Structure formats: structure tokens, C-alpha cells
């Protein structure tokens, strides 16, 4: 009987293998289908007793991320980025499983491609790689320009994701290589009354765009904008009034081949204008980052960054800064090790770092394995 079961099992395996012959491998790096991804493990520990960091020194099973690309033809591509964050266990309501993006793109030519689906809002340097730990030097993306809701603002300056249709492209001209993206999307639904990737909660659409130009091979300049009309709710009912949202930014990246040093600057401004009926004030915000690095032997990169955010230009003592210095080491085989020392400072009126918890430092470390 046992032998019979073994034979049956072997037969099923062989049948499966036979029927699967010639199929595209599920995991591979072929031309038409490929899977990339990474795993990241992080550690954070606040050094002072008081602050808004992690006083316990936690190990964070940060992310397992898969990026899938399928080229259906020379012109048509489907791409998706799926993440399992913080050891996701939906049964216990822990962690997070997310589709960071899933879209289809058709290329008419290099300078005219159309993309539709859920995507990262195309804005600035970091938003489209903010989950991609192998793609930037630091442990975290900048708070002041990309994660403002963790740095003293009630809202982000622009949403991280959008369901949209965008036109994008790139090319080369006498003034340098360039790329652009312009698009229209549902926009955000901050009240969470509907899934903004499925259903817009108002008729006003969000508009977004970015242009980047490289006038020199190692110098890139860019500008971005995002505008939307956010629905104002009262007891979950649409009041018919809208908050006008505008974010705009500029970026600069420059590096040298030898010595391998670089600098990165980014500014993001925000203007949030609630309707007069809401009784809420207009809020203008400014955020900026400045970062320098020096890569040694193509593997070891010391870096330093300064971040600054003014959540409300009319409010005093609400500004926050972060100064960090760290080391990024490419250990080979896709393994990247990061270690960092962060110093936070904020005014007493900052929305996140309240009095007594507004000056602290943290050590952070990450091990990232990309594939």
C-alpha cells in the first residue's frame, strides 16, 4: 500500500512536471517575466528616556517585497509591487499586506507612454522608491519631504499612492537627457469613507506631474506638482465644500565620478486651503532635505543628511529638524548593511514631538537583502 502511494505521488509529480514543460518559470529573470524584490530587517533604539522614538530597542521584521514585471510585447508591460510589512499576520490584525503598485503601461514611443492603475504618486526624489530599502542609502526615507505626517504635520503634503492614468516619457536633447510624467487621478480621501483606488469621493480630480533634466551626465534637476480638491465631511456626510490642496517641489542631485562624492537637495512646499465654511485656517508648509555622501571602493558609503520641516508657516515653535549620519555597506550578494545615528529636535508646538519629548536621538540599523 505504501509503495502504491509512493508510486501515485511520483506519478503526480511527473505529470505536473510534464505538463509544466516549456512554461515560463515562475521565478526568473528572463526577458518577458521577471521577479525582483528584497527583504529588510531593522533595529531602532532611542538613547534618551524621553522622546518619540523606540526606547525598547526593537527588531522590526520590516519588509518582504516582490516586484513583478511582465512584458506582454515590446510595447506593453504589466508591473506590480507587493509587500508584506512588519511580519504581516492578518489573522491577528498585525502588520500590513499591500499592493504598492499594479499598473499596465503601453509605449507608443520612448517619449510617449501611457500608464494606468494604482501607482506611487510621481513626485520628487523619494516617493516612488520610499519602500525600496536597497534603492537609497539611509535606513528611512526623508521625513521632512516624504513622511511629513511623522514629523509634526497632520497630513502628508501629497498622497503616497494614487489610482491614475499618466502620460510619461523620456528623451535626449541639446540641453540634456529629460523625463516627464503628467497625470490625472482620483486623489485622496482623507476621511476614509471610500477606497480612493476604487471610487472617487468627489468629481474633482487630482492632477500631478514632474519633469527632470540632466544638463550634465551627473547632474539632475527636477520639479514636481500635485493638486487636488479634498472633500470636507461633517458626520460622514459630504458638505459639498472642498479643501484645495497644492504641493510643489524642486530637486537637485549631483555627483562626481572621482572622488565618488555626491549631494542631493530637495524642497517641497504645501498649501492647504479649506473652504471658508469649514472654519479651518489655511496652512502653508515648507520641507527640505540636504544630503551628502562619499563612496569608497564602490562599496562603503558614509553619508549625512539634514532635514527641516515647517508644518505651518503661521505657527511659531512648530518646526522640526533631523540630523543624521550613517554608513551604508554593500556586503556583496545583494546584501546591504546600514547603521545610522539620528538626532531629532522640534519646537514645543510641533504636532508630534510634544514638550519634553522633542529632543532625542536614536540609533538605527538595517540589513537588506535584495534579489
Amino acid at each position: 500500500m505504501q509503495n502504491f502511494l509512493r508510486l501515485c505521488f511520483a506519478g503526480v509529480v511527473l505529470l505536473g512536471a510534464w505538463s509544466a514543460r516549456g512554461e515560463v518559470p515562475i521565478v526568473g529573470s528572463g526577458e518577458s517575466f521577471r521577479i525582483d524584490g528584497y527583504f529588510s530587517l531593522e533595529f531602532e533604539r532611542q538613547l534618551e528616556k524621553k522622546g518619540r522614538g523606540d526606547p525598547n530597542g526593537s527588531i522590526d521584521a520590516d519588509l518582504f517585497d516582490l516586484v513583478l514585471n511582465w512584458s506582454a510585447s515590446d510595447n506593453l508591460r504589466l508591473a506590480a509591487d507587493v509587500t508584506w510589512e512588519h511580519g504581516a499576520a492578518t489573522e491577528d490584525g498585525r502588520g500590513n499586506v499591500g499592493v504598492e503598485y499594479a499598473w499596465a503601461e503601453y509605449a507608443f514611443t520612448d517619449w510617449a507612454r501611457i500608464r494606468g492603475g494604482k501607482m506611487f504618486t510621481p513626485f520628487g526624489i523619494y516617493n516612488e522608491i520610499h519602500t525600496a530599502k536597497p534603492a537609497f542609502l539611509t535606513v528611512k526615507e526623508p521625513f521632512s519631504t516624504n513622511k511629513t505626517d511623522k514629523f509634526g504635520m497632520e497630513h502628508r503634503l501629497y498622497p503616497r499612492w494614487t489610482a491614475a492614468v499618466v502620460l510619461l516619457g523620456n528623451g535626449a536633447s541639446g540641453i540634456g537627457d529629460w523625463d516627464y510624467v503628467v497625470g490625472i487621478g482620483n486623489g485622496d480621501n482623507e476621511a476614509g469613507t471610500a477606497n480612493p483606488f476604487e471610487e472617487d469621493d468627489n468629481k474633482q480630480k487630482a492632477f500631478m506631474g514632474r519633469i527632470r533634466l540632466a544638463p550634465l551626465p551627473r547632474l539632475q534637476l527636477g520639479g514636481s506638482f500635485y493638486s487636488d480638491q479634498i472633500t470636507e465631511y461633517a458626520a460622514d456626510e459630504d458638505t459639498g465644500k472642498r479643501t484645495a490642496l497644492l504641493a510643489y517641489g524642486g530637486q537637485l542631485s549631483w555627483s562626481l565620478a572621482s572622488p565618488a562624492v555626491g549631494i542631493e537637495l530637495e524642497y517641497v512646499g504645501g498649501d492647504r486651503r479649506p473652504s471658508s465654511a469649514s472654519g479651518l485656517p489655511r496652512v502653508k508648509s515648507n520641507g527640505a532635505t540636504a544630503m551628502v555622501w562619499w563612496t569608497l571602493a564602490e562599496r562603503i558609503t558614509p553619508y549625512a543628511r539634514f532635514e527641516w520641516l515647517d508644518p505651518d508657516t503661521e505657527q511659531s515653535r512648530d518646526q522640526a529638524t533631523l540630523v543624521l549620519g550613517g554608513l551604508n555597506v554593500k556586503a556583496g550578494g545583494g546584501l546591504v548593511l546600514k547603521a545610522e545615528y539620528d538626532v531629532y529636535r522640534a519646537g514645543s508646538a510641533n504636532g508630534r514631538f510634544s514638550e519634553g519629548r522633542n529632543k532625542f536621538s536614536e540609533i538605527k540599523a538595517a540589513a537588506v537583502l535584495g534579489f
Partner: protein
Amino acid sequence: MTRTIRRLLVGLALLSLPTLVTAGDLVLIAHPSVKATSVPRSQAARFFLRQATTWPDGEHVKPVDQVRTTSVRQDFTRVVLKRTLAEVESFWTQAIFSGRAVPPPQKKNDDEVLAYVRDTPGAIGYVDASASLDGVKKLTLEED
């Protein structure tokens, strides 16, 4: 006087000729269907970085790379892409995760690159100058 003018004209003619890139010991190759006979260095770089995806006649470009451990890949990265291997890898990491593009397929050696280019219309690759180029077309690499 006439001789001086002739020399000047010859000199100008020579200057106007495309300058060949000193690409060390590598050769740029393409599928025989590709009509181009030469490629400017910056255009070749755009092909391999997927920033340009069509030949001048509209045929789709199919670049094929070599793995990072081959010496010809290191020469190609330095001479044609004008970057370090680490910079190119960083470029592709950002491109993949942001959704901008995916890198060309990578082959382990010249023989695999030659086989791919021979069998793939629109393909472009590079191999060591000592490799046999049967069945593929040699492209001249021009300085911009």
C-alpha cells in the same frame, strides 16, 4: 598656398569623420537585421539603460548584457556607460523598484551573448574583441 589649403581641407575632413571610441578589447555587435553600421557612444548607453528602445528604422532594440564578473562587462560599463558598476547597479535598483524599467537580460559569457544576438532580431550586445563574430554584425562605436 594650394598645398596648404589642401592640407587644411584634408584636416577638416578628418575632423568631421566620426571618432571611434577606444573601447579596449570589446566589440559592439548586433543582429544582422539591424540596418545601422555604427552607433554613437551615448546612444549605445541609452540602449543598454533602456532609455532608448528603437533603432532609427523603428525596429525594437533588444539589448543583452553580461554578468558583472566578466572583464568585458567592466570595460563596457567604464567606456560606453561612463559609470562604475556600482553606479549602474544602483541605477537599475531604482529603476526596478520605481517601475521605470527593467534591466536587459544578462548572459554569462561571450558565447551566450553571441547566441542571443544571432537569434534575436533587433538585438545588440558586446563581446571580447577576440570572439568569433559569425552570424552577427559588428557595429562601430562612435564618440559623440
